[in-house]
């Protein structure tokens, strides 16, 4: 029995492009914000100084003006706590303030232009990006920027990287390993966009990232944006078209939310055909086709009764696919 005709709205929808985009940059106690809410920031503008090794020290803080948690402290010149000058007031206990500070700092730069929405010392800075964003599932590393290059249907191996890719953000197709990511970062690549990253590669890469972060001489920011999940799956057609249009342009990768941000007002993002669906799981995983109609509840292997839809693939074949296995970009 056919019900509800060809209502493709029964298929879960995923937005292809998000706008507006609010990006959160995390701060920890002692980090010094360099911007205020309402400020306009350009690409590469420093928005905060991050402490490498924050410490908490006691200090006597004059009562006038009244100190507040989150405020900054000006140490008296030549005093014992001069190293904490500009430190962040944390809390007062037994008439002495605890101040978070340190000597070594790293600049935190915004990889996109935008307007600062909110600044919370010790917590976060929120910036509304000028431009639009492509959502990922997760992003590892830190905010970065570079020229997008590579093809979503290509495979990238560690040996295939060369210095021409320095400063670029690479699109590497369905899957990548930790060795390639580590080597890419070491060669000056600014980021990688990939459809799937397995748990093992993710763990290995994060361990390498943690070791790099603790080094004195740090490499430029590097991010890995995972678009889809943890298993090998081709890039969705709509996403592939968007990445193709962005190829050669400067884009930013951010981690919170995990997203690729582009500021190209004149770029027209082609809307995917309304009945184009993608199979994200099961027998036909990774294939795309045209949603024909909902066909009601069907029995599938394993004894599950699932709502299904009829999908016609480009080779002309049709199949009843569980609606839970389908997705569409809007």
């Amino acid at each position, binding site marked *: 029995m056919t019900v*509800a005709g060809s209502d493709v709205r029964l298929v879960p*929808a995923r937005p292809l492009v998000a706008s507006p985009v609010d990006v959160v940059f995390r701060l920890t106690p002692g980090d010094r914000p360099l911007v205020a809410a309402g400020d306009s920031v350009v690409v590469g503008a420093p928005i905060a100084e991050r402490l490498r090794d924050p410490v908490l020290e006691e200090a006597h803080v004059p009562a006038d003006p009244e100190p507040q948690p989150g405020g900054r402290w000006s140490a008296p010149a030549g005093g014992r706590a001069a190293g904490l000058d500009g430190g962040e007031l944390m809390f*007062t206990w037994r008439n002495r303030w605890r101040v978070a500070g340190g000597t070594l700092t790293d600049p935190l730069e915004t990889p996109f232009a935008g307007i600062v929405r909110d600044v919370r010392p010790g*917590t976060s800075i929120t910036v509304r990006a000028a431009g639009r964003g492509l959502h990922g599932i997760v992003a590892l590393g830190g905010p970065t920027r570079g020229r997008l290059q590579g093809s979503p249907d290509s495979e990238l191996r560690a040996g295939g990287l060369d210095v021409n890719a320095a400063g670029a953000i690479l699109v590497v197709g369905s899957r990548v390993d930790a060795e390639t990511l580590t080597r890419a970062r070491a060669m000056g690549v600014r980021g990688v966009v990939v459809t799937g990253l397995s748990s093992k590669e993710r763990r290995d890469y994060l361990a390498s990232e943690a070791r790099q972060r603790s080094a004195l001489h740090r490499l430029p920011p590097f991010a890995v944006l995972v678009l889809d*999940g943890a298993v090998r799956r081709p890039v969705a057609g709509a996403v592939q078209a968007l990445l193709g249009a962005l190829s050669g342009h400067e884009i930013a990768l951010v981690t919170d939310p995990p997203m690729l941000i582009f500021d190209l007002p004149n770029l027209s993002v082609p809307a995917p055909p309304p009945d184009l669906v993608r199979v994200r799981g099961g027998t036909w995983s990774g294939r795309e086709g045209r949603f024909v109609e909902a066909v009601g509840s069907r029995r599938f292997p394993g004894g599950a009764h699932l709502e299904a839809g009829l999908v016609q693939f480009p080779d002309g074949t049709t199949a009843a696919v569980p609606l*839970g296995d389908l*997705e569409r970009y809007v």
Partner: protein
Amino acid sequence: MALIGRVGGRWRLVGSVVLPVGADPAAVAALLVERAITVDPALGASLGLDRVPVGDLPRVEVASHPARRLVVVAGSERALAPLVAAASRSGWRTTAASAETADPLEMSTLLLDPTVDGILVGAGSPPAADERRALGELGALVAACAHRRSELPVVLAGGMGAELHAFGDMTDRLGRVLVAPAAHSGSTGHDLREVLTDLALPADDSRRALGAAALALADLLDRRIDIVEVGFDGGTRAAAWSASGSGTAGLDLAVVPAAGMAPPDPDDHVVDRLATWSTGTTDRHRLRDRMRELRIAPLADATGEGIALRMAAARAALSSLSTWTPEWSELPPADLVVATGGAWAVMPARSVALALVDVLRRAGAVQFALDHARILAPLGSIPDPGERRGILADLADDLLAPLGTVVTPGGLRHGHTVGALRLHGANGGGEHELRQGNLELVDLPPGETAVAEFEFHDMVRLGGRGRHFAIDVTGGLGGLLVDLRDVPLRLPDRADLRGEMLEAWQSTVLAGVES
């Protein structure tokens, strides 16, 4: 989504459908209405479905929300443990630190993290010697962080309430600062858990509504009810009893975010739990990959091996639910256990009762049912208790799909035939030999009742201790299941043997169902 309507003067379940999040609710409602009209045009007409636009039909809506994050801090590790236990079963995902193990900078970093949604700081009542020294500084630290994050609710539990003065003027705060009793296990810790649950769950939360539904169902059926929910983002246990049995009606609600079928970040602990129940691969990386995929698209890949993964994930979630609700084993056993939640949505109904008795094991005889249309929570959210009870009374037969009765004798001796079962029913009966370690499946269709007469060779626990028992049993999709396995269940350490054993049990209950 389900469609209910008044038919012949009472509320009836007209239809229901399970679709993934992201499907347009208007399209799903239209699908349900179109199906109702297509299958029974007269019914559709009598309900006015052919006249009223779908968007104008009255709706009762609830939603399960991702658990929010609570930072739990205390003066000592000893004081921290009961606070974490209370918060973890009250709808919060917890991150904990004590003054013993974290310095003030680490603790401030934790409290100021942008992903934090609430703060619980507690001490014993009165504070113990090991925590007393740290309380003053801890109070000042928390008050300073709360000053900077004025939107966060703060709960001061037990002896920490004495530090309320450190928070100063709170008139401009957006989040509440509450003083609550100290954390304790068992019924004495109920008050703090209630405060935390109230803060954790929004008014339209489906898990909150399950408590009200359990209470109404217990009152209606005059039985002790357990509702066990396993969902994408958490699990719930609601035990409710009516006034007639113990004198006063009561409810114990535990909402455990760690008991979700697809935790946001599957750590080794989660993966190990899953591996324990997996009948396929036990490779940690592959299991973690599959858990991450399940998290991203819970209803994708739900056929074949995908079902086995979900069965393992549901059992792992139940195991977590059991870990965070240890006091449940002290409550009297339920007469009826109702399974609900997304975990069961794609599983064969017969497997559901087995999954529950595999993990939440107690000696006794229990009837199982499935909230197949998942409308218990929406009905529980009806604000007026009288109206809620009335609608539940009409719908009880429609919303609860009977899974059957499971009889689990405890204290069986190993390695031989332990007794026999004689079934006396309206459609005749039969005699079955009972072997320790086996699952005996006896066909007893939904709607049928019978008396199961058990004759054991040795003394066993089945309610009380004895050799001879006669138990009223009711049928269901899974019939009568006599579970002669160990209580608690003992599984082989070797993954391959364990997988074979789990598959054999699964095959027993699915006997006769095509794969």
